């Protein structure tokens, strides 16, 4: 059986020779929830726009459910639901009318649209505003309607481009709850984000991209097991002193020291759990009165930073 999303040497050049996506090869398996991670300008949105026929492909191929998007976009996007960037809605339509419109374009019958509209509006917690014109909605409300329209026709593939972008913390939590709920169903989801905690929280697999090139693609667990780069935050009761710091710098695995205050510093550390425990003993041996010794940031963030750094 065909993988639902396949990219083969996918390349996009903009005018003035800027290459946004550079020979991207990626196969997304059925029923997986893949996070598409990368810094701003890495090529995430460009890739998603090529998958959804919003941009033409310079070279290479993008297949959705086995159909070349550039060759037959209607067939390729038939079972796809997408939220690209933050779409704007027709302000004169209500969420119910918008869903009727999108449902009609997908060939849904009127009773089917009515039933599904209720379900998806409930899922995104927009039932209360179902018959209010969208023109007055906040960005968060629009984002939820965007999710609803992507789900109305029960697609097999869902493509989301930074679905929590621009939302307030509460809106982010609500959208993430919806995303986690989607995991329970038979969808294949491809979601771009630059929020590492979000990806670590909701995705089963992660594809890392920078400068339009794929850096890593694996399950979240497998990627996390590769993480041996950590940032350790150390808080001490006494003061940071130079001689001890010099000794610490040459300790195995210590990459860099960053003194924040006289009672706090960060250690960029490369090594496993054993070496990390040794480092703690070494700090105590150097005369530091350790108040706290902990990993700073997410494991995925550390991997992300090291991969991005080495790709540049």
């Amino acid at each position, binding site marked *: 059986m065909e993988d639902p999303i396949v990219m083969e040497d996918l390349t996009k050049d903009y005018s003035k020779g800027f290459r946004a996506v550079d020979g991207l090869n990626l196969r997304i398996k059925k029923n997986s929830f893949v996070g598409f991670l990368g810094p701003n300008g890495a090529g995430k949105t460009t890739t998603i726009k090529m998958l*959804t026929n919003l941009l033409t492909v310079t070279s290479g191929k993008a297949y959705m459910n086995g159909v070349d998007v550039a060759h037959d976009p209607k*067939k390729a996007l038939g079972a796809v639901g997408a939220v*690209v960037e933050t*779409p*704007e809605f*027709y302000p004169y339509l209500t969420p119910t009318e918008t869903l009727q*419109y999108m449902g009609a*374009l997908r060939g849904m019958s009127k009773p089917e649209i009515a039933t599904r509209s209720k379900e998806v509006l409930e899922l995104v917690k927009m039932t209360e505003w179902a018959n209010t014109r969208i023109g007055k909605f906040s960005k968060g409300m629009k984002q939820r309607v965007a999710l609803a329209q992507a789900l109305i026709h*029960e697609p097999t593939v869902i*493509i989301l481009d930074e679905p929590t972008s621009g939302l307030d913390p509460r809106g982010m939590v609500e959208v993430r709850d919806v995303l986690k709920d989607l995991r329970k169903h038979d969808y294949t989801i491809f979601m771009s984000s630059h929020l590492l905690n979000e990806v670590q929280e909701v995705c089963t697999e992660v594809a890392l991209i920078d400068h339009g090139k794929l850096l890593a693609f694996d399950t979240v667990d497998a990627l996390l097991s590769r993480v041996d780069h950590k940032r350790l935050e150390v808080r001490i009761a006494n003061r940071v002193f130079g001689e001890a710091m010099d000794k610490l710098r040459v300790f195995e695995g210590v990459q860099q020291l960053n003194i924040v205050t006289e009672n706090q510093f960060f250690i960029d550390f490369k090594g496993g759990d054993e070496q990390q425990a040794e480092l703690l003993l070494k700090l105590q041996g150097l005369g530091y009165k350790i108040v706290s010794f902990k990993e700073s940031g997410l494991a995925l963030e550390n991997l992300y930073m090291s991969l991005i750094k080495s790709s540049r």
Partner: protein
Amino acid sequence: MAVNSTRQLPSDLNQLLSITRYDIFKHLRSRRLVAIFIIEAIILALMLSLPALLGRPYPTDPTEFVRNTLQFTFTNILIVLGATLFAGDAICSEFQNRTGYLLFPNPVKKEVIYLGKLLSTILIVFLVVTVWYWVAILAGAIVTGGVSTLAIESYGLAVIYAIAASSLGFLISSILKGSTGALVLTFFVLFMILPAFDLVGTLGGVEPVPSLTYQAGAIGNIMITPYPQNYVEYANATTGIPFNIYFFYPTVASSVAVMLGWILVTNLMAIIIFKRREMVG
């Protein structure tokens, strides 16, 4: 919630009709349609009541009644306004307002989206022109007791011109990035730029046959009996005119042919441009 991968997509025609239907909602719920109907109502009320207010008799000939009521200048302005307001930003607004991010990732061919929007605009400008003509034609029937067939022919030409002007608006909208620029350019092309070419051509003794606005002159000419013919007033030392003055009148046949040509060419070009246009930024 089960995933349904077996749903049959609707035909292009069904999708086109869905797009037309929801685009008509846009027009029906917009202030633009209300504004153009208010303008129409004010002009019609003034023109229909003017003879009574001035104490002059109404024409007894139904064609003359309609011609006096509508006036080609007003008809032309109304059609240019309609094409500007309902076609000028039809395509570029999808890009500028970012609604394209909602519509374009759907499994719908871009030419179907274009034609669906064009059809909705045509239906709306048809409605505007129909109200304009038929209020005058029916008022003429009540006052004179007859219906002018020439006025109905003029109405037919006005509908074709409205479609051609809207098609030009769609072409401009497919090319330009911003709605305001597209609206302003559509208005000025139809109201000033093409008429300026017509004037220059006429002054130089060249009949501006390919011009859309020149050919639209048949809308008013058809209600003149006999139908006016081209003629020249030659330079004459006795009258003091140092150059020839040319008077050109498009025939009905050339008017229909050229306007249909504009509809075909502008829409073909617009579809090609729209299909190639990317959702960037």
